[in-house]
């Protein structure tokens, strides 16, 4: 053991040990979060919510996010949930898409032509998500779990979480399965355990500092499957909603404190 200790000391100068590297990153994150430009996107999000669009030239202000038509307060913190009119469980983004087609008369192709934006031009779903999520600040996360379809969606999400698939045989648990694990510098929260899921889920959607982009949970599912080397999940599909539902139910009870800030 003495030799290894010596070797470790030898390299201490050029490579801080993993522990204090992790500790330092812990200090970096709140400092970045304190100065998060995420709020900047709430304003354009609100304008989009009120902007008449589509063949029917109607805004989204009558869209029912589960708390009643047009009610925003706390709506995000209570999603995903079952919607009788569509007879399925929906997350915020799939519900917005539903309102775009039913209220605004927009076709699915047109409304989903650009579901993930860029730093220059965030997508409609990204701006709307930041604005609507902001209206749930401080509200306790309580997704729907009383309806049969809500429980079934939760079970499906849990099974998907551990389902190994794709060219590299990964499941979500391959990376988000064990405590204290990192990919490069990135700690990996064990998202099927409430104590780790709560702080994470309560901070989405978020502003990603490295790319100056707004990112949502639909984007997160899409990009994880991309890195799992599977084909692409369809935006708002049952698979993506089930995973988001499983994660949100696991994070139940945490006061929502987003929109947050990511690496």
């Amino acid at each position, binding site marked *: 053991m003495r030799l290894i200790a010596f070797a470790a000391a030898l390299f201490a100068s050029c490579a801080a040990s993993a522990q204090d590297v992790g500790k330092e990153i812990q200090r970096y994150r709140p400092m970045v979060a304190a*100065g*998060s*430009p995420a*709020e*900047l996107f709430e*304003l*354009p999000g609100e304008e989009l919510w009120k902007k008449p669009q589509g063949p029917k030239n109607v805004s989204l202000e009558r869209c029912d996010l589960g708390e009643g038509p047009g009610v925003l307060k706390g709506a995000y913190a209570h999603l995903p949930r079952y919607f009788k009119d569509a007879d399925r469980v929906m997350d915020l983004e799939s519900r917005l898409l539903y309102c775009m087609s039913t209220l605004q008369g927009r076709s699915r192709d047109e409304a989903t032509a650009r579901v993930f934006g860029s*730093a*220059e031009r965030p997508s409609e779903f990204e701006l709307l998500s930041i604005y609507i999520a902001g209206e749930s600040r401080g509200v306790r996360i309580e997704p729907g779990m009383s309806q049969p379809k809500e429980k079934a969606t939760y079970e499906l999400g849990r099974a998907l979480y551990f389902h190994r698939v794709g060219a590299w045989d990964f499941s979500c648990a391959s990376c988000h399965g064990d405590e204290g694990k990192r990919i490069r510098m990135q700690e990996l929260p064990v998202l099927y355990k409430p104590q780790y899921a709560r702080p994470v889920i309560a901070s989405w959607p978020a*502003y990603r*500092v490295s790319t*100056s982009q707004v990112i949502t949970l639909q984007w997160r599912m899409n990009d994880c499957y991309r890195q799992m080397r599977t084909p692409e999940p369809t935006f708002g599909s049952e698979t993506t909603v089930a995973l988001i539902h499983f994660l949100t139910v696991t994070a139940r009870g945490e006061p929502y404190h987003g929109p947050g800030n990511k690496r």
Partner: protein
Amino acid sequence: MAAGPMKMRASLGAGFTDVRVLMTHPMETGLRKDADGKIVPQHFIQNLTVKMNGKTVIDAQISQAVSRNPVFSFRLKGGAKGDKIEVSWLDNHGESAAIEAAVA
């Protein structure tokens, strides 16, 4: 590109007024290429002015090394509820924007 939204919060801290201001701006360094490989020209805020009740209290010169969508925190001496705080910027394309808020 019209100047994007700004947001500001001015609140009384321990013996000072805490001013936190967020600005929408690409702060392009002129070193970045866009999706089809073209260099995006330099475009960044150069001057920042903070005023309290109409009097300039901070004059700043900043560069493209300030992060995109800049966020600044300043501390002004004293200050009382209702004092008028104004922050304005001017960039290297001659565009400018300003925001005003009363101390909460």
